[in-house]
């Protein structure tokens, strides 16, 4: 999908008008951002908005996320074990220390 984020009042208004006029390609709207579907028409609308507002419009392309394809089992297991932890106050770094769970610094260094 296309993620559009605006950074000025005028661009935000432009995005709001775009979403109002073109409901079909709009997947979801958030305050000054929106997700459009991945069609050339949606991209046309996005690029047109950027033509009008330059750097106040950011366009990114998003990909569906599949944790079973993108992550090792150990990371998924750590996430579910941490979500089920006994004490809500335990930070992950302490939770992982001395266990098989991956070290957060190592995870930060790994690209998806």
């Amino acid at each position, binding site marked *: 999908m296309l993620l559009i984020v605006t*950074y*000025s*009042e*005028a661009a935000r208004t432009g995005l709001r008008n775009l979403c109002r006029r073109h409901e079909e390609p709009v997947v979801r709207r958030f305050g000054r951002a929106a997700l459009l579907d991945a069609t050339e028409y949606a991209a046309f609308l996005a690029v047109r908005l950027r033509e009008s507002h*330059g*750097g*106040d419009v950011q366009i990114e392309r998003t990909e569906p996320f599949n944790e079973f394809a993108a992550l090792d089992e150990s990371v998924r297991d750590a996430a579910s074990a941490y979500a089920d932890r006994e004490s809500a106050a335990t930070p992950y770094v302490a939770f992982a220390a001395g266990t098989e769970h991956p070290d957060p610094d190592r995870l930060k260094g790994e690209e998806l």
Partner: protein
Amino acid sequence: MTDASGPGTHPVPKPEAVLGRIPTGTSLRRELAAAARSRGNESSVRDECRRLRDEIAAIEIDSPDLAAARRRVAAASGEEDRLKERVATLRGDVRARRAVEAETDAALDDLETAAAELSDAQTERIAAEQALEQARQRAAAARDERERRLELEDRLRNRRREGRRELATDLYPEFRDALGAVPGGDPANAGRGPSAYDGPALAASLAAARIADLDEPVVLGVEAAHRLAVRESGPAETVLDAPITRPDAVGDA
């Protein structure tokens, strides 16, 4: 490249820009705030508004040319793909010639040339990707500034709204009295504040202009001029307490 324009940096409109033309096309609260400013009244948020405006004006935003960087990556990738295909074709050509024991010198020369071009294209593509990544990082940092500017603009807009509310509320008793002096106006319609006014918009605009102290004549639309003309209580200038330009004098309505 920098850009530092934002709608939030617009100065507060001159009172004449709000009330100098009737109908005004704006809200009663804005009309009354303009009337208050025309008399030299200041809201308690005025200094903060000025500070916010200065802060917004001082923001300089780096605008790296991301489009040029993206175009370069796309062009370099396209060229690389084209040359990859060409190298594959030439390789096949060489193999086919070897298979039939034909002469391969020319085909090998072509292959060598294409392979060298491909290597250059790959170097260019990598350089283009690195340049785009750097431009993206700069743009991401600049977006923090854009975000800050937008927050300040939103805050400024809210402060200005507060200021208008304050100015309009302070002037409201006088406005209520003035309604009794303009055609179509009635103090009974005033209610407790600008949002409670329940009378004709034209009468409210006339009353706001009456209590304002404007430096320029008020331009009247057809209906406003007509209303003031049929009124028995003296000339329109007296009703508005301001010089007037009639629609026939400005050629529009």
